[in-house]
Every structure is written in C-alpha cells, then in structure tokens.
C-alpha cells in the first residue's frame, strides 16, 4: 500500500523531499502508479506504463544515493500521447496510428528522461491535438475531475491536452507535457484549475512530436504551480539540430526568475479582448487580476491589439492547411492502420476514411480546399498576410509594455456533449489563446478563481518572444495574490 499523502506535494516540494531523503523515488512513483489506477474512470491515460515507471524510479534512487542527483530525479510525469516514446505505443489518439511503436524518442521527452524524470504513461488528447474539449479521441473522451456542485454531469477537461490536464489536476501526475497549437495547453489548464505554459516558438523542440500545424505547434508543460512550470520548462528547452525551427538560444534558469518582484513592470490590458458576450464573472476576475498586479507594484496600461478579432479565422485557415499537408503521411503503407483496396488509391482512401475521425477529416478537407488551385490566394495567402499584421500588433504592444494580462478562455468547463453541434461554437473557445500562437510569443495560464457554478477560471500572462522569465515572474505574483486553493471533486488519494 503506497502513501497517498505524497500526492499532495508540488513538483518542487517532491524534488526537495527526495533530495532530503524524506522518501524514495520508488515510494513516490508507487503512490503515483496507484493514483493512475484510481483515476481510471476519467480516461486521462491511454497507456499507463507502471513497470517502466518503477524501473526509472529505481535508477533515480540509485543516483540520489550516490549523490549524483539530476534536476528532475524521481519526478513522475505524464506524457501527452502526441510525443513519440521509443518502444511505447504512441497513438495521437487516432485510429490511424493503431499499434505504432516509435523506434525513436522525441527530443523533449528524451531531455526529461536525461533529467531523471519518471514516465507514468501516455496521456489522452483530442485526435491529432485537434479540439478544445478532448471529445474527439479515438480512445473516448476524458472527464474533467471537477464537477459543478450538485450536478453530476461529467464536464470536459478542455483540449487538446485534456488527459494531461486532468491527470495533473486529479493528482495522478506531478506534471505533464502538452502541446499548444491554438490554446491546447492553456485552455485545459484553465478548465482543470492548474498552470499551463506555452513557451516561445522554437524554445522546445518539435522533433518527435506528431505534427498538427508545424508553424503553430508548441510543446510545453502543465503543472500545479508556476514554480513547477519553470522547473519543467528548463528541462524541456534547448536547441535541437533535428528541428530546423529550434532556436539556438541559451536556456536560462527559469526558477531563478521567480523573484516575486514586479515593481515598475509595465503590464498591458488589451482592450480588444473585451469581447461581446464575455461572461461578467470573467470580466470581473480580469479586473481583480489588474488590481492584484497593481498592488504588487506593476504599472497597468490599456493597450490595443487591433487585429485580435481576425486571429480565429486566420488560425482556422492556417492550421488546417498545415494539417492537410502533415497528415498526408498517414496512408496505410509505413505504419498504423491499413484498409486493403484493389488499387493503391483505393487503399489510401479507405484507410484514411476509416482512420480519421470527423473533426480531423473536416480540417483536412478545409485545409485541402484553401490550398487548392484557385483558392490558395483568397484564403491561405490572405491568412498568412493577416498573420503578419497580428504579429506586428504584438511587436508594437511590447514596445510599450513588458507583458499582457488577459483571460485564458471565454468560459469555464462545459458538459461533455455541449457545443459539439456547431464547429464554430467550439472554435470560439480559442479566442484568447490563438493570437499568441500566431505570433509565437510565450504565455502562461494561471488559475485565479471559481465561476458562479464552482468551476475554475484562469488568467494568462503573455510576454515577449524568449522572455518566459517575465511571464513566469508575473504569473507567480498572480498565483500568490489569487491564492487558488480549491480542489476538484475527484482527486486520487481522497483529497487533503
């Protein structure tokens, strides 16, 4: 029987406890393996890897005993099942990758294992990371560990990194990797009451991460605290010659940036984020965020990002266009599912019809259309031009301010099955998160309060390219001011 009290520690506390030898990596991992089993009803993991986790924990214990501890030695984490893991089933939550066991390890997970982290398993997600509710997975929807008080309907955890967010929130992983193409780290973090960090484009290598939209995909961490995000980011970052867009820049000690001092920092409030139909409670929480940062010595300034309203349609042209190209590789020849046909074209068509779910098919078709002869200029080229203007908005804003404060998502978590009729209603979830992907700038989502019906809500700090340090510093000040101490209705180990 493992010790469930170990599950209450943050990553930083667990790291320090391991260093002090208050408990062993094996004890910590055993507690988390049990937690992974306990939260099975949430469907947060596609493939748990408990034996591998214990073997990795034993190796960490050995290093800890020898006084050769690595930065993340013995820290049990979940890996979004979009990261290739050598010899371990990797699905992208798609039927079309049936049985795929990568012969290589993604750069980011390799760095995490080189830092001593322990793999608990592969976390569920929206199919090919396309979705905002984690309901498009071939392996079934993930449930949010939160419920509305007095209401038993299961809620979505957000998406696409929904399994990662649910696992961290329900204390069945100390941290998790995610990917954020249009909000897929920050929106589920917000829905599950945890921290999610999308770094600068190029900070974390995309090599070995199943591609959705290559110019927008950002690997990053989901954690319970801002400090934990800083620790994870350091281990995940660094130049990788195998990713031509990986930035050859040094990796700072992000944890050292958490000084708690934001005096004199200029923080922008983008006025265009006050969208019509934003719930009053989110507007109010945003206002509270302004007061908190002002009280901490920040200088709050209203700024303008005039192109904001065009970010969503721009994203929903560029992302499907890149997806239609990236997903061309799933053809039944080299890996995954194959449906036989009489001709090679018939085999391709039958394989892809059977292997892709409805949302993936929709995006591949949209992408194929906007790239096709006669429509390329009207849609794709136009969207790329608007993207230039959106990126310029951020450059201009960061001449005046050091970072921005905005809501993470326009609502709290919704019930599974809501908002699925109209694809555009689902796309609107990404209204506050998509601009940072188009501009490639870093952003962190921090839980700051509860909605009227008792569900977590978040705010995000958006910063300059390669200035995650400011983003983390301000994020931590926001976190300390908000004192978000609420727990989901379902956590492994039975709560406190």
């Amino acid at each position, binding site marked *: 029987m493992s010790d469930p009290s170990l599950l209450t520690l943050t990553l930083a506390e667990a790291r320090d406890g391991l260093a002090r030898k208050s408990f062993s990596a094996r004890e910590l991992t055993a507690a988390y393996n049990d937690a992974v089993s306990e939260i099975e009803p949430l469907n947060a993991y596609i493939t748990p890897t408990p034996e591998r986790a214990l073997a990795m924990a034993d190796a960490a214990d050995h290093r800890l005993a020898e006084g050769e501890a690595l930065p993340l030695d013995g820290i049990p984490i979940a890996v979004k099942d979009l990261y290739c893991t050598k010899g371990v089933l990797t699905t992208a939550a798609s039927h079309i990758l049936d049985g795929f066991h990568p012969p290589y390890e993604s750069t980011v997970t390799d760095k995490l294992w080189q830092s001593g982290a322990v793999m608990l398993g592969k976390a569920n997600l929206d199919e090919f990371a396309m979705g905002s509710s984690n309901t498009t997975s071939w392996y079934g929807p993930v449930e949010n560990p939160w419920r509305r008080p007095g209401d038993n309907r299961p809620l979505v955890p957000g998406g696409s990194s929904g399994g990662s967010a649910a696992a961290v929130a329900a204390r069945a992983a100390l941290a998790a990797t995610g990917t954020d193409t249009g909000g897929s780290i920050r929106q589920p973090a917000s829905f599950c009451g945890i921290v999610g960090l999308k770094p600068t*484009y*190029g900070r974390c290598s995309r090599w070995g991460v199943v591609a959705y939209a290559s110019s927008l995909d950002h690997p990053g961490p989901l954690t319970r605290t801002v400090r934990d995000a800083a620790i994870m980011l350091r281990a995940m970052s660094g130049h990788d010659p195998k990713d031509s867009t990986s930035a050859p820049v040094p990796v700072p000690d992000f944890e050292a940036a958490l000084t708690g001092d934001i005096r004199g920092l200029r923080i922008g409030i983008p006025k265009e984020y006050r969208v019509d139909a934003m719930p009053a409670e989110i507007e109010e929480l945003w206002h509270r965020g302004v007061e908190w940062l002002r009280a901490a010595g920040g200088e709050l300034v209203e700024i303008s990002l005039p192109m904001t309203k065009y970010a969503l349609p721009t994203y929903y042209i560029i992302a499907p266009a890149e997806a239609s190209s990236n997903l061309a590789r799933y053809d039944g020849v080299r890996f995954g599912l194959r449906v*036989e046909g009489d001709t090679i074209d*018939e085999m391709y068509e039958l394989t892809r*019809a059977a292997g892709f779910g409805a949302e993936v098919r929709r995006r591949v*078709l949209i992408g194929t259309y906007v790239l096709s002869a006669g429509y390329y200029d009207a849609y794709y080229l136009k969207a*790329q031009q608007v993207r*230039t203007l959106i990126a310029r908005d951020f450059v201009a804003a960061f001449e005046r301010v050091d970072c921005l404060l905005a809501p993470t998502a326009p609502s709290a978590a919704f019930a599974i099955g809501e908002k699925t009729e109209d*694809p555009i209603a689902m796309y609107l979830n990404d209204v506050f998160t998509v601009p940072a992907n188009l501009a*490639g700038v870093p952003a962190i989502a921090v839980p700051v309060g509860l909605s009227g019906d008792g569900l977590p809500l978040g705010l995000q700090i958006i910063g300059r390219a390669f200035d995650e340090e400011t983003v983390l510093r301000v994020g931590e000040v926001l976190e300390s001011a908000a004192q978000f101490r609420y727990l989901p209705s379902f956590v492994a180990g039975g709560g406190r």
Partner: protein
Amino acid sequence: MALDKATVAHIAALARIRLSEAELDPLADELSHILTWMEQLNEVDTLGIAPMASVAAAALPMREDEVTDGGRCEEILANAPRTARGFFVVPKVIE
C-alpha cells in the same frame, strides 16, 4: 463561399479520403458555413503585406551534406502493415 456536392467530392479525392454519397451534403453545408465565417478576413486591407509562413528566423540553418544516420531498415519496417524482403508492400501500381 457555398460549396456544392461536386466540390466536396473533388476535395475529398484530392485528400484521399473516401466519402459516401450520404456524407457529401451535410459536409458541403458544414464546410460552407466555416468558409463563410473565414471570409471576414476580406475586411482587412493586406495590400503589400508580406505573408508570414513562420515566426522562426527566416534563414534555415545549413549543414554539411553528409550521411549522419542510416542502416535502420529493420526498425523502419517494424511498424509497417505489410513488408517483404526489406520493402514496404502496396497494391500493384504498374500494370
């Protein structure tokens, strides 16, 4: 932009996704709805604006053109649905 059934069938053929006759009409409606929503971008004046393909530095890094990896035939074939004698096997392409 309203897409008709024939256009949807054409895109699906380009994308190599088999659709049944019954799927064409609902998809045509759905895709038309999405494309119409996207057309709000026409409000933006983009005359003379350079398109952005990536936020990463424009120049791709170069390296020497030399073999750095290879000899992994077995690993590469290990995930394939059908193989023979070191090759991927597909339906006959040439008559």
